[in-house]
């Protein structure tokens, strides 16, 4: 078979992070090639290199044997590389036909103007649907389509650009079993037409059902590439785990007290299913799982950002109802978001103003805010957590990611909470800051703070947590105590490999 795409020794760094390290990947015409790896293993960065969103620092991209350099996503698109994301980007009010040809409408001269030639577009769209073997009304508006049909339109759109290389990023994540079958049918027809398909998925069974080869990536590195006939689920899992356990701060032993929180049968339509767990005083409890397993959604429901449909929550044995984040704060829960820029901080404000924001009512002298008290509070945390800034009046947006994260954590612990909920506390921070944040979390635990920690980095959870709950499809699929948890065991539960 002809090799249509080849990536050789690709290196991509972001300040402080080596995202791709000597990455290799190749794709042949008429094959379906799976890429798998944990969250954060480098799959997305790899795809962004292939589609021209990022430029590699070094290494070579070849298409049809010719070295190419993509200056922009349009460049990659023009060379026949198209990507279908999990979230589709169709214009809801336009018809299928208009969406497919948006930006490259077929036109013809009419009375001296260039008019859109709907008849020609219709003919071509029907040809494409013929290749894909789907039947959709071209005049239907995108808003009336289901998720799976929208994906089909996206694929048709990609084909209308004569794309030879199609990347599918978790295409089945939000599809039903029947829709998945239909999608697989389309993917197979395209394969027969000689389209090269890169297929990213967490669902290992799909890989064995659909794909020809599978490449595993981990820590931005190429780990292995096998024909699916020569490998099995256990081998893939073994390749996916094995991140280095260095640089993690083991949790100091502290007295584990009585029950702090007990959740029973929490349900939220389409998001959480019968979630029950308990957390004892002084514990660090980890929540592992793949992206979309419902971990963040659980934390947000606990904190009153979203409403639960049913289920009970007990704090120290007393049943509580949390209707808003203010209620959660009053109950002693505080949430540190995974998305600092969007939810965690007002980056245009100073470090001081961010740290005191959740407790402005305590920062008053008479009617007015007490600047001295605010400054002392902020300075204390700048000092304790080692936030690197000239002073606490410094604007948060000018800090590095790691230091912004420390501000976000300071803001939470300044509330003196009973339960600290950390959502991906080390995402997007460099290695040095990561170690510092682990150190801070350990220090807090040593002082007896109870911590609910969501992380996609298994070594982080294994290194720091007393117990780990593993979530899958909105429910708790397993629980592992400290000592028994290994990356392999966690991943097997998260991927549902028996």
């Amino acid at each position, binding site marked *: 078979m002809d090799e249509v795409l080849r990536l050789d020794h690709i290196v991509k760094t*972001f*300040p*402080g*992070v080596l*995202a791709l390290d000597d990455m290799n990947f190749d794709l042949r015409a008429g094959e379906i090639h799976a890429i798998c790896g944990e969250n*954060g293993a480098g799959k*997305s*960065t790899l795809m962004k290199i292939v589609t021209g969103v990022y430029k590699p620092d070094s290494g070579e991209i070849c298409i049809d044997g010719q070295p190419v350099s993509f200056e922009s996503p349009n460049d990659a698109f023009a060379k026949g590389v198209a990507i279908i994301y999990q979230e589709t980007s169709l214009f809801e009010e336009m018809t299928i036909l208009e969406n497919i040809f948006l930006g490259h409408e077929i036109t013809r001269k009419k009375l001296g103007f260039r008019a859109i030639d709907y008849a020609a577009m219709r003919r071509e769209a029907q040809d494409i649907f013929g290749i894909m073997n789907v039947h959709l009304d071209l005049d239907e508006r995108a808003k009336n389509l289901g998720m799976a049909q929208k994906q089909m339109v996206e694929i048709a759109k990609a084909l209308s650009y004569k794309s030879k290389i199609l990347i599918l990023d978790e295409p089945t994540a939000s599809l039903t079993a029947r829709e998945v079958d239909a999608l697989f049918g389309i993917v197979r027809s395209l394969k027969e037409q000689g389209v090269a398909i890169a297929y990213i998925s967490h669902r290992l069974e799909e890989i064995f059902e659909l794909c020809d080869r599978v490449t595993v990536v981990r820590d931005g590195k190429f780990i292995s590439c096998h024909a699916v006939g020569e490998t099995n689920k256990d081998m893939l899992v073994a390749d996916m785990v094995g991140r280095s356990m260095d640089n993690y701060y083991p949790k100091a032993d502290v007295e584990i007290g009585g029950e702090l929180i007990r959740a029973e049968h929490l349900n939220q339509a389409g998001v959480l299913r019968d979630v029950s767990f308990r957390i004892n005083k002084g514990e660090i409890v980890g929540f592992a799982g793949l992206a979309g397993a419902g971990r963040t959604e659980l934390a947000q429901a606990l904190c009153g*950002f979203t409403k639960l449909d049913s289920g009970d929550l007990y704090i120290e044995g007393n049943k509580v109802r949390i209707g*808003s*984040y*203010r209620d*959660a*704060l009053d109950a002693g829960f505080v*949430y540190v*978001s995974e998305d600092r*820029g*969007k*939810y*965690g*901080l*007002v*980056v*245009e*404000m*100073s470090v001081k*103003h961010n740290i005191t*924001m*959740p407790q*402005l*009512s305590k*920062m*008053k002298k008479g*009617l*007015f*805010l007490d600047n001295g008290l605010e400054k002392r509070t902020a300075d204390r945390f700048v000092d304790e957590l080692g936030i*690197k800034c*000239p002073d606490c009046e410094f*604007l948060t*947006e*000018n*800090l*590095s*990611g*790691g230091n912004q994260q420390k501000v976000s954590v300071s*803001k939470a612990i300044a509330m003196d909470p009973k339960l600290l909920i950390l959502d991906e506390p080390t*995402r*997007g*921070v*460099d290695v040095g800051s990561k170690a510092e944040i682990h150190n801070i979390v350990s220090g807090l635990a040593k002082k007896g703070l109870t911590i609910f920690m969501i992380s996609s980095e298994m070594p982080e959870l294994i290194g720091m947590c007393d117990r780990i709950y593993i979530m899958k499809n909105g429910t708790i699929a397993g629980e592992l105590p400290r000592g028994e948890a290994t990356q392999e065991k966690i991943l097997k539960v998260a991927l549902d490999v028996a």
Partner: protein
Amino acid sequence: MKKPFKIDFNIALLIILVALIAVIGIRNPNFVHYNYVMAVVVKNIMELGMMALPMTLIVITGGIDLSVGSIMIFAAISGGLVSASHGEAAGVLVTIAIGLLCGLLNGFVVAKLKISALITTLATFFLFRGIARGITAGDSVYSYKFSTAMGNTEVGGAPLALFFYIACAVVFTLLLSKTALGRSLYAIGLNQDAARYSGLKVDSILIWIYVLSGVVCSLCAFFYLGRFTSVKYDVANSMNLTVVTIIVLGGTSILGGVGDMRGTIIATFIIAVLKSGLTVMNIPIDIQTIIQGIVLIISLIVYSILGERAKQKKILEVMRDGGPRLAEE
């Protein structure tokens, strides 16, 4: 937040104000006479100035209130009607109640139903006018004793409204710069999600400031009705836009998160001087409008240049201090 260039901008505004007064004063010395200043320049701007104070709070949260003039007229008309039928006290109470309820409606729709403030208050702008027309059948409504006193009393040659304005200006300046509420408003304007995730009661804060705006409109209703002795439903139609002009001229970003009360206060007087000063100079009304437009555009350009320069300075600082920020994946 308090950014270094904000102070420069307020000084620039102050220079513009002084220059305008100087130029007009030289052409026509009567303009700077105390009695003229109080009776014309100041008196004519009081309602607009007072409305601009709470609206600055609203604009800082990223909102806007286009219904202010309508609330004032609606409140004035309702108060006038009720005082004629049920007595002075009832009229005063109704005036205040109308402003409060109108503000509450605006705030509720914006905060709870999450409909854009621009659309909401544009709709209520027409709604309140429409009701005002309906209840008067298009007739004029006349002032009553309390309102007349509010509108025409002078203390040491200065209109009573000026003292109310000064009191409001002080209160609102402190409110915005010194209190927890003021800080929350900036946070909401800069990043409403993060404000929510900090446990700020965003919805009730928003409702509260629209109510505040409505109540200030009620206060203005007394002065306005008193000053003109009678009002009809269709007067003061462009008041909302003048108030927005004042706020934008004062350096408050229409996108929210940036601005302060001092800018609004200085800008109030720039508009006051322009309005009456150009009349004094016998400049025709159409040219006056053009000049107002030009002043606003120039101030926006100056503001964006100053802002851009501050941003560049900040980037240089960052590059010097700690290297570029970490890229997020």
